[in-house]
């Protein structure tokens, strides 16, 4: 355990007669690793739910292969789930696990390097057969050859104990074996004092139609829990107190869930019907799945024949007065770019959600990256500006979706919402807002019903002087018939125009409209508690957590650093240039090769220092802390009372 000062707080007498002690920790990082067929994501999600309802703050990092079922027991087939939970507020899923559960040799081999020396390692000894060892190239059994001496290794026959527990269940061996993940969850639930009722209820619900499977899983779960309580293999259990949180109602939420609910809320709060046109793609498909469940809200979800039809149908729906949305990932954005430009030209509201993944091409479908920023900004022919925003955490995807709707409807423009794989699948506790407290978007919807021209005609490109938005007159409204399209439009009338002056004017006007959004977004949000930091770190999107955790460490070491995190990437907040100019040095960590840095340098002539990685995983807080610290020290020298470690999160 890496936690500070573990304190033995209590002892309890196990049924076996010996005394088990309880150690109090402030935070733990657990990683569950197994074969993709072992149900590690489900186990992780259940442990997360138990942890959330217990009241810890938490952050998760699911990590799974793109293949649905890579060959069993092989390295490419390893799936893992990391959960960080604490008695205080945390920002990341943790740099490295304190505890690793390896369900087979492949999971051990793929993950052991990440477990710091002294960490707790729990393995399913039943799976360490010569055949399984050979599959991943272990010449000798690591459980026996002493190679695991640097870790506290507990090898437990998880599979056979599960089979024993289910001997009377009537299930065959293969089927019974599948409950070993629930046995493991039971054991961990005991170790960390997790509430168990939620999981029992979940299993009953999940296997409603197969009561014998529900019963077997619950039996395995209880057996795992009881095993923890009685065995001598685990002498200690751990307590992590609930984190102090603002009073209110909470739930655990993933980014894709939050984004979906944000879209539902935006529809409800604007009074517009939501239309989603989408083509399945990892890691965005869950938004399509989630929205498809909410038909009672009048939401139409359309699984299109391809990405182009996804956005095209959404544009058609927007023309008809709906809030058109399309959801995808990078390769899908590539296919949508021509239609995106049509939405820019026709000036219709549209939300395009890009849940970014590793690229280019098919890239790393299940891994995270933030390398579509420049594509979002510029990936179209012609001068084709649109609004770009990004959420910073799983729960923040909710607010970002509502903000995307606000901009899209108010300014009649496509808005690109850049989520990513880490936000999409990661989860955190979320303070459930009351519907009535959400932004009221009804004011943004003002369908044109009366001609606006001097001669009683309707001018579809006569703009609102303040927002530069054009009127939205929807089919069915008498006297307002008009034609729009991708050919250049004459100012005011919207007729086709090849006039040079008009094209120049319209090009600049479309840009001015997007630039003008800045007037509605407020100043840059700067976190500079002492106000005298000389170094600022700026980021966008899902790096918020790791940057924030890194910044905390740096500040704890006695140094000053400002953190700036951008929600709006196009346009930037109006004062961003001034804000950046206040700092001697600006660091910009990104999970790409420096895309925001490029924009900032180009726009503000600021010597932004880019720090990048594209490993398909979020940054580690410690790494960012070191980078920031180096920059600070090379700018103003190390502070006198520096604590070189900076401590944990």
């Amino acid at each position, binding site marked *: 355990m890496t936690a500070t000062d573990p304190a033995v707080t209590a002892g309890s007498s196990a049924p076996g007669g010996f005394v088990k002690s309880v150690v109090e920790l402030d935070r733990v990082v657990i990683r569950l690793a197994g074969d993709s067929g072992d149900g590690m994501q489900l186990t992780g999600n259940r442990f997360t*739910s138990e942890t*959330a*309802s217990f*009241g810890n703050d938490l952050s998760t990092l699911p990590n799974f292969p793109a293949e649905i079922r890579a060959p069993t027991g092989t390295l490419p087939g390893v799936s893992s789930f990391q959960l960080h939970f604490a008695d205080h507020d945390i920002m990341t899923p943790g740099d490295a696990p304190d505890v690793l559960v390896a369900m087979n040799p492949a999971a051990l081999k793929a993950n052991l390097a990440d477990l710091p020396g002294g960490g707790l390692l729990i393995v399913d000894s039943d799976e360490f057969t010569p055949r399984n060892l050979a599959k991943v190239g272990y010449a000798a059994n690591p459980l026996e050859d002493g190679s695991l001496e640097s870790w506290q290794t507990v090898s437990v026959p998880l599979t056979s104990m599960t089979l024993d527990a289910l001997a009377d269940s009537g299930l065959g061996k293969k089927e019974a074996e599948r409950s070993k993940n629930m046995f493991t969850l039971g054991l961990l639930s005991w170790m960390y004092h997790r509430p168990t009722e939620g999981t029992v209820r979940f299993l009953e619900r999940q296997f409603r139609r197969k009561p014998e499977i529900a019963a077997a899983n619950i039996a395995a779960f209880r057996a795992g829990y009881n095993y923890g309580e009685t065995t001598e293999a685990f002498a200690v259990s751990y307590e992590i107190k609930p984190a102090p949180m*603002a*009073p*209110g*109602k*909470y*739930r*655990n939420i993933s980014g894709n869930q939050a984004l979906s*609910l944000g879209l539902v809320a935006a529809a*409800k709060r*604007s009074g*517009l*019907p939501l*239309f989603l*046109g989408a083509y399945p793609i990892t890691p965005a498909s869950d938004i399509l799945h989630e929205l498809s469940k*909410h*038909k*009672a*809200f*009048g939401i*139409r979800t*359309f699984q*299109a*024949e391809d990405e*182009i*039809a996804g956005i*095209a*149908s959404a*544009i*058609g*729906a927007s*023309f*008809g*007065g*709906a809030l*058109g949305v399309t959801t995808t990932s990078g390769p899908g954005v590539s296919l949508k770019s*021509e*239609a995106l430009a*049509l939405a820019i030209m*026709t000036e219709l509201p549209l939300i395009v959600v890009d849940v970014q993944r590793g690229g280019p091409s098919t890239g790393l479908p299940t891994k995270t990256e933030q390398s579509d920023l420049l594509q979002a900004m510029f990936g179209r022919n012609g001068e084709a500006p649109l609004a770009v925003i990004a959420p910073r955490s799983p729960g923040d995807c909710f607010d970002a979706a509502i903000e995307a709707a606000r901009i899209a409807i108010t300014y009649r423009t496509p808005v690109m919402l850049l989520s990513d794989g880490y936000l999409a699948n990661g989860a955190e506790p979320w303070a*459930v*807002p009351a*519907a009535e407290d959400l932004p009221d978007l009804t004011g943004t919807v003002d*369908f044109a*019903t009366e001609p606006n021209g001097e001669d009683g005609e309707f001018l579809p490109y006569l703009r609102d002087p303040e927002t530069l938005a054009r009127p939205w007159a*929807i*089919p*069915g*409204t*008498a006297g307002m*018939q*008009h*034609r*729009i*399209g*991708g050919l250049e439009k004459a100012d005011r009338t919207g007729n*086709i125009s090849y006039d040079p002056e008009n094209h120049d004017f319209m090009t600049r006007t479309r840009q001015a409209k997007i630039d003008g959004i800045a007037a509605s977004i407020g100043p840059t949000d700067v976190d500079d508690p002492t106000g005298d930091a000389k170094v600022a770190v700026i980021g966008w999107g899902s790096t918020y957590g790791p940057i924030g955790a890194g910044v905390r460490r740096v500040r704890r070491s006695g140094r000053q650093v400002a953190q700036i995190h951008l929600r709006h990437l196009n346009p930037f907040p109006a004062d961003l240039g001034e804000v950046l100019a206040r700092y001697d040095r600006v660091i910009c960590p990104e999970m790409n090769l420096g895309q925001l840095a490029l924009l900032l340098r180009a726009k503000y002539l600021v010597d932004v220092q880019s720090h990048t990685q594209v490993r398909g995983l979020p940054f580690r807080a410690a790494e960012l802390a070191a980078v920031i610290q180096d920059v600070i020290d090379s700018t103003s020298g190390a502070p006198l009372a520096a604590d070189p470690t900076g401590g944990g999160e």
Partner: protein
Amino acid sequence: MSTTDHVHDLGMPTSNPIDAAIAASVSTQGEKQTALKAKDFKTDQEVRWCPGCGDYVILNAVQSFLPSLGIAREDMVIVSGIGCSSRFPYYMNTYGMHSIHGRAPAIATGLAVSRPDLSVWVVTGDGDSLSIGGNHLIHALRRNVNITILLFNNRIYGLTKGQYSPTSEVGKVTKSTPMGSLDHPFNPVSLAIGAEATFVGRAMDSDRKGLTDVLRQAAEHQGTALVEIYQNCNIFNDGAFDLLKDPTTGTQWSIPLVHGEPLVFGPDGAACVVRDDFGGLRIAETNQVDASQIVVHDAHREDSSYAYALSRLSSQDLRYTPMGVFRSVQKATYDRMMAEQLDVAAAQGSDDLDAILGGNDTWTVSA
């Protein structure tokens, strides 16, 4: 179906009222004006096709017959792709979108699905719908969304100045195929029937009566209707349909499809359509067969193999061309079914935002 029935059909669906914001906007103008004249459908935009282009004839035919449908102009939307033919919406005083190459069926689908109260039309060319937009066309047809697709087939890429198209005959010499094109063309009618279309028709630009007749049936059809309109491009593929237009050869080669009538054609009804030995159809000489062998056209036949066989009559001799409605069958439309799912969901569930924000598992932190 009388015109008044049709107006009702296109009116606000009672089963699934469209959402408040839209309804408010749409209903502000009171009674729909449906007693219109052809000129009411014209716009002030100068029509910019080449003089003599078949597109003019089609535009006139559409503008003349639309008033008889009894659809208010504001309830009609024409979505097109890119091509000469796709300029069509600019000349129609309805709502319209001149979109991007090949994507009109997808745009129209989103619109028709979210606004079942509208009459949604697609105008497209042979390149637009069968080349770059082929995928959207076949999926629109199989879904049976309530849209009417007019495919202007001039067997050439007009707007890009005369390259061969997916309907050009093999060996077509164009700028991009100086030694003749190599690829085999699509028969749009066969393709549509293969794609599960519920309505497929074919008409000639210059045949005002035949064209109007097919268009009317297409407009009244509930579901996706595809009408292939042979259109002369007098600049890049002039005379492509002369054989069928010529008063003498025309009767010889076109096979008029009239529901319930025997398929007899040619001068003095000399030719007819009979079943062949392999379950398909073939052309025969009327005086060589028994009258009972002559196929009586049934556009409503559920099984599409009959309509498909009709569309393949040209494989016997490329010149044989059935004209009219090949197939017109009733099937639930995608937009209605989606509206019904929404109704069912609304009846069984609630639209309480607070309830879904909270989800199934919440906990409360007290002060």
